[in-house]
């Protein structure tokens, strides 16, 4: 009985344990290393791609990986899979970063507006947030996308609507409680404008929580973008993205699985890396969120 209770009540018992070890765990290092690598690849895409990602090599069509000219093989038009992968990483990261930032800014502004004005402004923001949370985003995005056509800018903006309601709720809650604290009141009494109070004083105090939410949204945006592109409704050819490559490689699943496996592995590794780093950051930065 005693040992069962001890093992089943770890929440209280194990709490002091993580405190002393302050070192970064090896998996987080691996995650960080992967993220650095992938961002470097995205930034240097133009210089490090061995061929133009649209260039044909008709003599070497569907050649398997470890080919002397094409390390990751080629697709059925003889396009170099490695080059396409490098460009895809750039586009997918661009969409994911762009969308995450838009979503964070939009959500935070909405949350601050709700916290500042209260009353009916707050009600509208909360209603929109409820609406956003209640509908599956994939369905909303699908209907918007196909009917607005498919520019990259528009696509990023649309993805930027994903998850704004979480930032809005967090920012509203934190801003309301911060507004009641001494420091915000003090600055206000000196005569600071509301925007100064919110941006210079409240925002830095709640930034860590918002950054943690961004690490949660980021992998989801990558998955969403790749899902839409996989369906042929996201990033459009001749441009390429990770999901696009998987969707395209699916046609050659039996003859040339490497076309699909390389981008698929990249998606999984990247979302995994962001999740690992995000979880660690959350433990580090945000004692309230567990």
């Amino acid at each position, binding site marked *: 009985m005693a040992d069962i209770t001890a093992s*089943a*009540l770890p929440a209280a018992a194990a709490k002091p344990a993580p405190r002393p070890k302050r070192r970064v765990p090896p998996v987080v290092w691996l995650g960080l290393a992967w993220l650095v690598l992938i961002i470097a690849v995205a930034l240097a895409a133009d210089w490090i791609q061995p061929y133009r990602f649209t260039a044909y090599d008709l003599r070497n069509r569907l050649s398997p990986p470890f080919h002397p000219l094409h390390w990751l093989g080629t697709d059925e038009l003889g396009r170099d899979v490695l080059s396409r992968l490098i460009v895809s990483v750039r586009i997918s990261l661009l969409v994911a970063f762009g969308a995450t930032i838009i979503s964070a800014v939009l959500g935070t502004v909405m949350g601050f507006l709700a916290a500042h004005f209260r009353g009916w402004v707050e009600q509208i923001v909360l209603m929109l947030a409820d609406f956003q949370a*209640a509908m599956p985003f994939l*369905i909303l995005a699908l209907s918007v996308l196909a009917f607005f*056509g498919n520019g990259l800018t528009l696509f990023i903006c649309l993805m930027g609507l994903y998850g704004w309601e979480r930032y809005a709720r967090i920012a509203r809650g934190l801003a309301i409680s911060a507004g009641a604290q001494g420091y915000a009141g003090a600055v206000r009494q000196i005569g600071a404008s509301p925007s100064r109070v919110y941006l210079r004083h409240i925002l830095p105090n709640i930034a860590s929580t918002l950054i943690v939410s961004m690490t949660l949204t980021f992998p989801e945006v990558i998955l969403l973008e790749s899902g839409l592109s996989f369906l042929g409704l996201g990033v459009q050819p001749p441009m390429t993205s990770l*999901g696009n490559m998987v969707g395209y490689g699916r046609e050659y699943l039996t003859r040339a699985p490497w076309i699909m496996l390389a981008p698929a592995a990249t998606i999984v590794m990247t979302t995994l890396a962001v999740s690992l780093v995000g979880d660690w950051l959350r433990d580090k930065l945000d004692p309230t969120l567990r």
Partner: protein
Amino acid sequence: MLRFLLIRFGRAALTVALVVTFAFIVLRLSGDPALIIMSVDAPPEAIAAFRKAWGLDDPIWLQYLHYFTAIGQGELGQSMRDGRPALQLVLERIPATLALTLPALAMKLGIGIPAGIYAALHRDSLIDRAVMVTAVAGFTVPSFVLGLVLVLVFSVQLGWLPSGGQESWRHAILPVLTLGIGGAAVLARFTRSAMLEVLGQPYIRTASAKGVPWARVVRGHALPNAAIPTVTIVGFMVGSLIAGAVVVESVFSWPGVGRLLVVAVANRDLAVVQCILLLVAVTMVSSNLIVDLLYGVMDPRLRSGAKAGAH
């Protein structure tokens, strides 16, 4: 309690109305359906006739009003492609989708919840670690990758199962697995953390300190309290029974609602897209409503009605 119910119903209706408005605005203002449906070189008279037939020349607010009244009468328009009622087209596809999502839901519940509870009760054991690793994998591997890898292994390499289509129950195995594995992992992770949260509460310590057998503490105190947050996510899963298989249906060429949606979006078939959007909204909103009502049943603190607005 009545007030609580009324507020809930009001909000549900409002959400549906918002979805309808959203659909209408996006779909109507984004392009000219007449030019999309007819070919570019269609004669102007034909285009004019098409516009008139679909009411596209009316002012936008009139079209909006017509749309709302039509929905009130259960009239959701015709597919612009083949002229059949959109609602009928969508309803025809629902059984096929449910044939995937219902077994997948059973799999999620049957594996996810027990695994989560077990992992929480045996924290840091080998099984707990395994559950957590699987849960993270379930979150990071997108369904189309999982589906394609399953096809690669079980259809291409081993030749055990068909890779797509809907001829027999064997065709459903891979799509159900794809949907179920990911969902079970998410649910296991969620249940585990809900359970751990509850197990850390003082009333659990009190109960075991006064000598209640551990099995009874778990059954009588821990499980009912951990069920409350878990019900929320299960409600979300029930709500996505219809819309939750869009990608998986496409991977396995399964003729369900999701496949219809993708095709309709690609063809810009306004009526069908609106119809699916509305159907999804209604399913989602009603399952949220049921979850809210279940809260009232499960959590006596909410039953008093004093804190009707609290989540």
